[in-house]
């Protein structure tokens, strides 16, 4: 199939960007979306032009590196699918495709489709962990965890940190990302101890990094390639209220 692409090109963080038109020729249904871009890029390189820069690494939908808004939807229109796992059989000959980077103040564009997501790392650094030392921990079975809790924690822990939730959110909020970590750790006895502090500092850091507030639109859930549910945002809100009742982050 042959496609027309409108791709965001921006030479650097300070430069102005614009959509440029490209043709993708002889694309087969078995190709992944990124393999389609590889084909376009290889042609660009051969003709001495700069290829389209985009983030990608594992190409199995788990590393969270790929990040493209395709026709207005982060990771494209397939549910629970990252761009690297999106296949061309979902497109038709003659289609026009818009490809844009994640857009949010907290994700400045570095080049073309590549954005800087270090703000998510800094949120994690603020409190997305259990403060455990290496060594000197009890046996793995010393604290029993109900299967339901372990499963819930795992549901939340599946977040790949790609930032699609932020890209999809009309407010550029990172609530689903933060909620996934807060809920994951608060559900487990090991993470429970620091739950109050964690929810306070992580949400504060979120605001500090320039992310917006949650307006409960749930675009994040629709865009999440791992199907993280907004029930975890409700869980975060509960944890926050609980923390406030106990006296805030210093408890």
């Amino acid at each position, binding site marked *: 199939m042959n496609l027309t692409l409108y791709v965001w090109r921006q030479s650097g963080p300070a430069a102005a960007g614009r959509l440029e038109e490209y043709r993708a020729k002889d694309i087969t249904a078995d190709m992944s979306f990124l393999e389609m871009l590889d084909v376009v890029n290889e042609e660009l390189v051969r003709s001495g032009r700069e290829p389209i820069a985009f983030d990608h690494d594992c190409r199995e939908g788990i590393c969270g590196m790929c990040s493209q808004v395709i026709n207005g939807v982060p990771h494209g229109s397939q549910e629970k699918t990252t761009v690297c796992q999106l296949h061309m059989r979902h497109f038709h000959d003659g289609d026009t495709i818009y490809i844009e980077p994640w857009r949010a*103040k907290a994700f400045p564009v570095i080049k073309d489709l590549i954005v800087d997501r270090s703000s998510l790392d800094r949120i994690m650094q603020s409190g997305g962990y259990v403060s455990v030392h290496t060594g000197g921990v009890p046996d793995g079975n010393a604290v029993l965890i109900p299967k339901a809790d372990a499963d819930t924690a795992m549901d939340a822990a599946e977040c790949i940190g790609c930032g699609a939730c932020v890209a999809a959110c009309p407010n550029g909020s990172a609530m689903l990302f933060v909620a996934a970590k807060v809920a994951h750790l608060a559900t487990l006895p090991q993470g429970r101890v620091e739950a109050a502090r964690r929810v306070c500092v992580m949400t504060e850091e979120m605001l500090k990094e320039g992310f917006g507030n949650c307006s409960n639109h749930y675009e994040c859930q629709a865009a999440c390639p791992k199907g993280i549910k907004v029930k975890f945002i*409700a869980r975060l*809100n509960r944890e926050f209220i609980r923390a406030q009742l106990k006296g805030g982050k210093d408890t």
Partner: protein
Amino acid sequence: MDIVKNSVGRKLVMAVSGFGMIAFVVAHLLGNTTLYSGPDGINAYALALHSCSALLWSFRLLLAVLFALHVFFGIRLTLENRAAKPQAYARTDYRAATFAGRNMIWTGVLIGVFLLYHLLQFTLQVTDPEISALRHPDALGRPDVFTMVVLSFRKAAVAAVYVCAMAALGLHLAHSIQSSLQTAGLNGEKTLPVITKGGIIAAILIALGFVTFPLAVYAGLLR
């Protein structure tokens, strides 16, 4: 206050203040149904309300505070949200966000403007002094709220303003009922769709309920 320095804290202020106002709106709607019992109904209701002025004024004060908080944080959150998304996509395809949800600030502004008019009209009664209930008691000496309302809604423009305002209120509530419950953490995977649907139905019922008054008057059913 530490809590309002936090994004979730601010949202909680919105949810709690919003919920307080929703409670008021529902009470107001129920109170207004006395209109259907004719002058005796609503005029008696109004007199009863005004007879315990201490309570009335504390309610008004509370509502004013909730309103002020809601407006202040509503604007602030919206500005923050706009700042967090400085550049729009060339194409946007919303898959979950609703028209109501995305336009909360505008329906909110409309409701605010309407509220001002509504207070001037029926509470302070300065827009149409010739039908002011306070200045025109009924046969029993009570402020004649019934006549004031009926005469107001007979004007097509006034009725239209009320219908439009209630549409804005309906849209505002359609998002805000589920949203405030979610923000308060009173939501789960199974309850979310129920609450979302229930919220929309409740919003429609409330808006329709209010709309019946100007419509009934304008159509001549209430006279």
